[in-house]
């Protein structure tokens, strides 16, 4: 899933200055799971903004709140049609994709990002998420025992550990495991160390020419079959 952190309140307060009526919009999917922008966080942020406004005494924003099932999918945005007429901006607590989906769907509406979208990862323990995939477009987890060197090694190197690893940790961050120590240990356990002995050439960054578009194979096949038959 996608993991994000809510922006600091002060930054959010600065962003909304030009707008009177602010709709705080949550997302019911990833942002709910990572505690950054689900229904609960929307309501917390709503209260925090009201309190801050009351304290400052010289602002006149009006806030409303709503949480969509998902912000990154156009079909889930339809319910907003009759809500956005009454607001001057949407403060989205969706990930960067959600914010952009809103901007595309509502060309005349200013949208503001309320979270910093950080990575694709998984819950490690309660309230802790770790990055696991950088969407490199050329997955090599088969060669690395299911541990991603591109995301989990600071340098994203492919041919084994650098010399900086110490106590199994990464030279860049003593709290983080060295990806290549993990890969070595797991390959050893799987009796597949020959995979580490192999040479891996430089990555192909064309695997994902940004921005990338993926077309569903299923719908394409259906079309192809149709054309052949036609």
């Amino acid at each position, binding site marked *: 899933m996608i993991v994000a952190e809510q922006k600091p309140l002060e930054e959010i307060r600065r962003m909304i200055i030009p707008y009177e009526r602010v709709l705080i919009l949550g997302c019911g999917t990833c942002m709910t799971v990572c505690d950054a922008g689900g229904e609960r966080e929307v309501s917390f942020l709503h209260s925090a903004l009201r309190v801050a406004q009351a304290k400052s005494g010289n602002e006149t924003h009006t806030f409303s709140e709503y949480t969509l099932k998902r912000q990154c999918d156009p079909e889930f945005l339809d319910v907003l049609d009759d809500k956005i007429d009454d607001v001057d901006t949407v403060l989205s607590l969706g990930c960067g994709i959600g914010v952009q989906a809103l901007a595309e769907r509502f060309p005349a509406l200013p949208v503001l990002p309320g979270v910093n979208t950080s990575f694709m990862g998984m819950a490690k323990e309660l309230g802790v998420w770790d990055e696991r995939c950088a969407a490199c477009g050329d997955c090599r987890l088969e060669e690395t025992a299911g541990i991603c060197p591109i995301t989990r090694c*600071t*340098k*994203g*190197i*492919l*041919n*084994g*550990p*650098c*010399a*900086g*690893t*110490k*106590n*199994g940790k*990464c*030279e*860049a*961050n003593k709290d983080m495991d060295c990806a*290549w*120590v993990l890969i*070595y240990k797991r390959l050893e356990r799987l009796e597949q*160390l020959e995979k*580490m*002995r192999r*040479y*891996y*050439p*430089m*990555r192909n*960054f064309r695997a994902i020419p940004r921005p990338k578009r993926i077309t569903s194979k299923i719908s394409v096949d259906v079309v192809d079959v149709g054309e052949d038959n036609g």
Partner: protein
Amino acid sequence: MANSLFEEKLNSNEFLVTTEIGPPKGADVSEMVHHIDLLKDNVDAINITDHQSSVMRFPSLGGCLLVKERGGEPILQVTCRDRNRLALQADLLLAYSRDICNVLCLTGDSIDVGDHKEAKPVFDADSVQLLRMIRTMESGKDMSGEDLKGALKFCIGASVHPEADFIEPQLIKFEKKVAAGAQFFQTQGIFDLASLRRFMQYASQFDVRILAGIIVLASARMARYMNDNVPGIIVSEAIIDELAGVEKGKGLEKGIEIAARLIKTIKEENLCHGVHIMAVGNERIVPEILEQAKLPSMPTKAQ
């Protein structure tokens, strides 16, 4: 083009001494030139570091040009941290065109340990890929398969960490570097000769030259700091104790003594093919270390 002077010496089986100079932070190269002049006739080659510890400095290529100008033998350190494959290849072309043919191929320290922590880390290649990149260029092609105008020939080396606390994956990488064409290795700092002996027992099966890295420590505090902050450095407690035992102000003297002792033993016991002295900011003391280790300055260049 003939082999570089350094490459000829690598092939000659003599005991080699290299050292390194870290370029200045700024365009005033007078001190570096002074160090080059001081060292060039005392050692077989001088490495110029490439933003060592990810701290932005005068470029290694620029330093190598100065070594050339002053009549020394440079080893260009190239890391993959700051340059993608286009820039790496271009720098190598420039180096070769100026007769800088010895290249030490490194992945490079993480951006996080340096002084520009918000910079974009590149790492388009790693050390093994960089070695292969050079061999590919020597075959007349660039990394996109296009023909290169003019022949190239480099003498390439890499680093290895015999004192790593988890050695097996490091050895796999070492073998990949050998297979990629590395001719020489300058090791990470060696403080415990037992680990060098163990490593050489294993490494002697490969046709490569190993120069043991000797870091000159100036105090116990510096040693502890390096243990905590410099990637890959593991100074043994025995050495730290030895440094801690001297009176204030005598640390560097002790560091020189330790370095000289290590070098002397390595040479006497013929443990490996030479040493690479890293004086980290104290370049001026290298001749003194060689003197104390009783290595005649510049073994072969005399005539």
